[in-house]
């Protein structure tokens, strides 16, 4: 039997270790943010958003094409993922007891865990190889696949949170199930679903691996969906592994823009969820 003093000592050491592990995790976070901001801020200027990449040796230039490219590819992904995600979420919530809805839930969770690089390989097989052409569309498909499970699961969860009395009220008034869902339940859950979409966007905006061999990269400005297109992440990768100082600076600037986009999306989503959770409490 340990003495009381020893037991207290062990306990205090344990508490200290737990507090220390919080610090251990926050140090890299602070380091990463510090370097991204301090290095990035030196290279981010107006030209970064409006100009095209310059060739090696010519300082300056920007990533206008990559910024537009990221918006296009993420937009294509959303176009694909939002209908599939929301409607399959509706199905999972409305018919939650059925075997098929369990299968859909399992598929969504599985898809959520598939490494992004594997999704890239899949998109290459279905959208690049048949046409022998890297394209913005293929990139959009890859990102869309990654967004679907996030949107589907959030929609499901949020619909289940809508008070059953609201749905029952609609049904009691003679509404069909479709009417009850689309006119009453979905609108009530909408803020939360939008939060889910924003979170999904925040996640895919920072994805590189699935774009490497789908939307590929492009030195030029393009909005053609059947052509390879530049994205912020792939551009940062290309610059980061290059041996040139100027390009490294550009990579840090790109990283700063990326982190800003991703973190502001997360912040918006976070405040929105807090509001919803507040409503839930009432």
């Amino acid at each position, binding site marked *: 039997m340990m003495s009381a003093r020893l037991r207290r000592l062990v*306990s205090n050491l344990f508490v200290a270790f737990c507090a220390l592990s919080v610090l251990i995790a926050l140090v890299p976070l602070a380091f990463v943010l510090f370097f991204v901001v301090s290095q990035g801020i030196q290279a981010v200027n107006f030209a970064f958003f409006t100009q095209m990449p310059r060739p090696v040796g010519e300082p300056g230039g920007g990533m206008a094409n990559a910024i537009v490219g990221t918006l296009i590819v993420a937009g294509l992904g959303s176009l694909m993922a939002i209908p599939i995600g929301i409607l399959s979420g509706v199905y999972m919530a409305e018919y939650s007891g059925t075997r098929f809805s369990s*299968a859909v839930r399992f598929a969504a969770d599985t898809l959520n865990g*598939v490494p992004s690089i*594997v999704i890239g390989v899949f998109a290459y097989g279905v959208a690049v190889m048949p046409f022998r052409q890297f394209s913005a569309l293929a990139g959009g498909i890859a990102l869309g696949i990654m967004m679907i499970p996030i949107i589907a699961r959030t929609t499901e969860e949020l619909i289940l949170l809508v008070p059953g009395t609201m749905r029952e009220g609609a049904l009691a008034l003679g509404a069909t199930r479709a009417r009850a869902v689309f006119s009453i339940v979905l609108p009530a859950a909408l803020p939360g679903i939008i939060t889910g979409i924003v979170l999904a966007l925040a996640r895919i905006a920072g994805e590189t691996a699935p774009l490497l061999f789908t939307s590929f990269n492009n030195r030029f400005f393009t909005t053609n969906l059947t052509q390879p297109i530049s994205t912020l992440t792939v551009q940062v990768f290309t610059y980061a592994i290059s041996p040139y100082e100027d390009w*490294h600076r550009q990579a840090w600037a790109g990283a700063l823009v990326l982190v800003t986009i991703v973190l502001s999306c997360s912040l918006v989503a976070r405040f929105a969820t807090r509001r919803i959770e507040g409503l839930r409490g009432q």
Partner: protein
Amino acid sequence: MRRPAKGRSGRAGDTGFRFATGAFALALVLIVAAIGFELVRQSMVSVRAFGLSFWRTSTWDPIAGEFGALPFIWGTLYSSILALVLATPVALGIAVFVSELCPGWLKQPLVFLTELLAAIPSIVYGLWGIFVLVPAVRSLQEATPEWLRQVPLFSGPPLGVGMLAAGLILAIMVIPFTSSVAREVLKSVPAAQREGAYALGATRFEAIRAALYFARTGIIGAVMLGFGRALGETMAVTMVIGNNPQVSASLFAPQYTMAAVIANEFTEAADELYLAALVEIGLVLFIVTLIVNSLSRLLIWSMAQPTRRRVAAVVVPAEESAA
């Protein structure tokens, strides 16, 4: 005459609704099936050519058409397990601190900060890895005393890039996943469990140890979830691991992972066999992460059962009234 007709049309509308939303849900299932099917189809050439020897040999020579994936499997497992060893104590420490120890006002900010860690894109970790972490690891290697470098675990020239850098960056990236699930799992431990322990005169550590033991299935699930993330992580690892296909026990040796070789060589794979070999690596990555993730979800889910039941109870009346 009119009333049943109306009723039937309403029911027909409901059936239509069910099939319409069901079609989109089916699309989700089909996408997952299609991923598996495509990967198998595209990798057949390599599977037929090499069979199981693909996973036992370690020559990776695209020009000679010889492909052995052992170094990649080794690198993926080594880096993920290393990340797990580094991340698990810290992640559990955070989970315990946030859910059991810290004052209430600190809870939300800490949850938010650990979530930020998960929100930072992999490519940004990679960039930071190349320019900050790798030089730091290099000076650490240079500071390693000569006698220690004789040990196989620390052998090799001080390059900076290599297994240690990869394991460290993966650990940072995995911590938020493991800790947030572990936190949820701890939340599902009944308060009576802790109160009972305290009532028996347990110290904080002893009470929390009891809670952790109570939640062990879920905790193991949380750790496995982190493992699944680490297995598939691509960009950050690609940028710091050194991309050298070799089977080495050394933390300082540059190595390679399955995800990294796909990322680096996929666009260069000119011939059919080369491409199929890379897709086969992707297929195995898909299967392994699928198994790991399913297992971890099963463990977490079995832990969270009581809460599930409560949610279901809320839903059931709506289901019945609609039926």
